[in-house]
């Protein structure tokens, strides 16, 4: 089952002389349950692609379909809610809420949506990610690796259709990176999550089931 599809996705920044084609007709399909790594050097358009996939920015032309819905036909406010319900994000700088403790951070997207959290499921996630003893800590007091584990838990908690990870280990040393990536892989496997991970690092990309290379705004096959 296809969970994510882009059709002839284009993004142009600037106009005239200074026109930059950040994305130049990207066609990408991701199946449910797949772990896909998108690899490219800086300036290849991989971050722009991630922003389009996550509905964080609108493309110049082309479409993105997530879980059967063409997301750019939605109005801004609808898109925000769609993101909250269907897409889990993991960022390089974790983006946790510093005034909330670990447990509150994990529950935040579910609670924003007015849903009742699936307690057993959330506990399973917390356990798998080894966060049980840290639940009452403020996120600021955690190490980078621990913060990123909280971010993974948060992304999983709302059972999104897809998880987008943008250089998830960009701020971590290589040893911690390996642990965080292992957890991402194992939890993805365990909870049958679809994951798209953006990275510039070939070695990190080896973790994925499939590697997509992006160069000058286009997918190379």
């Amino acid at each position, binding site marked *: 089952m296809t969970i994510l599809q882009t059709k002839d996705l284009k993004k142009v920044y600037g106009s005239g002389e200074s026109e930059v084609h950040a994305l130049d007709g990207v066609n990408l399909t991701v199946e449910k349950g797949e772990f896909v790594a998108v690899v490219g050097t800086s300036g290849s358009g991989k971050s722009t692609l991630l922003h389009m996939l996550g509905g964080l920015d609108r493309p110049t032309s082309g479409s993105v379909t997530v879980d*059967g819905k063409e997301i750019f036909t939605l109005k801004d406010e*609808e898109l925000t809610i769609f993101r909250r319900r269907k897409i889990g994000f993991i960022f390089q700088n974790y983006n946790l809420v510093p005034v909330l403790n670990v447990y509150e951070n994990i529950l935040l997207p579910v609670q924003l949506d007015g849903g009742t959290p699936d307690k057993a499921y959330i506990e399973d996630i917390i356990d798998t990610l080894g966060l049980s003893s840290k639940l009452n800590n403020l996120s600021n007091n955690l190490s980078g690796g621990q913060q990123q584990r909280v971010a993974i838990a948060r992304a999983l908690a709302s059972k999104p259709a897809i998880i987008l990870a943008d250089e998830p280990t960009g701020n971590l040393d290589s040893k911690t990176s*390996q*642990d965080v990536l292992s957890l991402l892989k194992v939890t993805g496997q365990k909870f049958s999550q679809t994951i798209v991970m953006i990275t510039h690092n070939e070695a990190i990309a080896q973790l994925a*089931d499939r*590697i997509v290379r992006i160069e000058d705004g286009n997918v190379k096959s």
Partner: protein
Amino acid sequence: MTPDRLSVILFLSGILCLLAAIIITLLDFVFRRRSLRRMNDMIQAAIDGNFQANNFDESMCAAVENRLAEYLSVTETQMAKVAAEQEKTKSLIADISHQTKTPIANLLLYTELLKEEEGREIGETAALLENQVRKLDFFIQSLVKLSRLETGILALRPCKSEVAPLLEEVREQYAVRAEEKGIYLRVLSEEVREVTARFDPKWTLEALDNLVDNAIKYTQTGGITVRVKPYELFVCIEVADTGIGVAEEEHAKIYERFYRSMAVAHEPGVGIGLYLTREILRQESGYIQLASKPGEGAVFSMFLPKD
């Protein structure tokens, strides 16, 4: 103010209140009907199989719609799983009959020959026979392991264990074979005396065996290095060879059941080892990873959780 005017005002405000009440009741009725109709439409669409969550606003109705979408997607996934299982069983039966056909046909042929030969050259034919029986035996044994693992008859029992004994076992099992082939087998178990992880020793050895077995099979010069890399939450057992390597487009496929790369079609094997290895690791909440390019060797890494 005369009592007359007061009663008129009271009367009028009474009427106004009544009117307001009627309007509110009517509006409520209309809204409720609309909500119910929307839900009715949703359920109808769900029955017809063309349901889609289209509303992403903060209303309760949109939330209900989204929950329904989630529910339907879960059901759909389960149905797809059942269908996939059936498909798997079908292809498994097809694979088994295909894989057993040749050895059985050969066995029959050699038996015929044996009957006719009457004392001459029996040794040679018997060796051929033995070879076929071994193939069949290996295949059936793999199948049995596989089905036990898959049906959960033999559930894995991961427990905290030392990693070093696994490596020593591997060295004992494969040292001779590597030597016979003229390649080295370096097992670096000395420096990891204390390292432990949560795994099922018997099955994990099976998983590691498969990797080392493959490494020896596909390496002609150079050799194999087995080492352990401990991390904070995971332990990695790495099997690195200097063999033929794996093309990137095959990195995912090699774990599929009965998949054999065209590049190794001449080597014996049925394409079960890596599938089994991946299943074992998955059941231990670990995973396997490959880094390789054709001609540059392959590095398989087994990741096991520490606890």
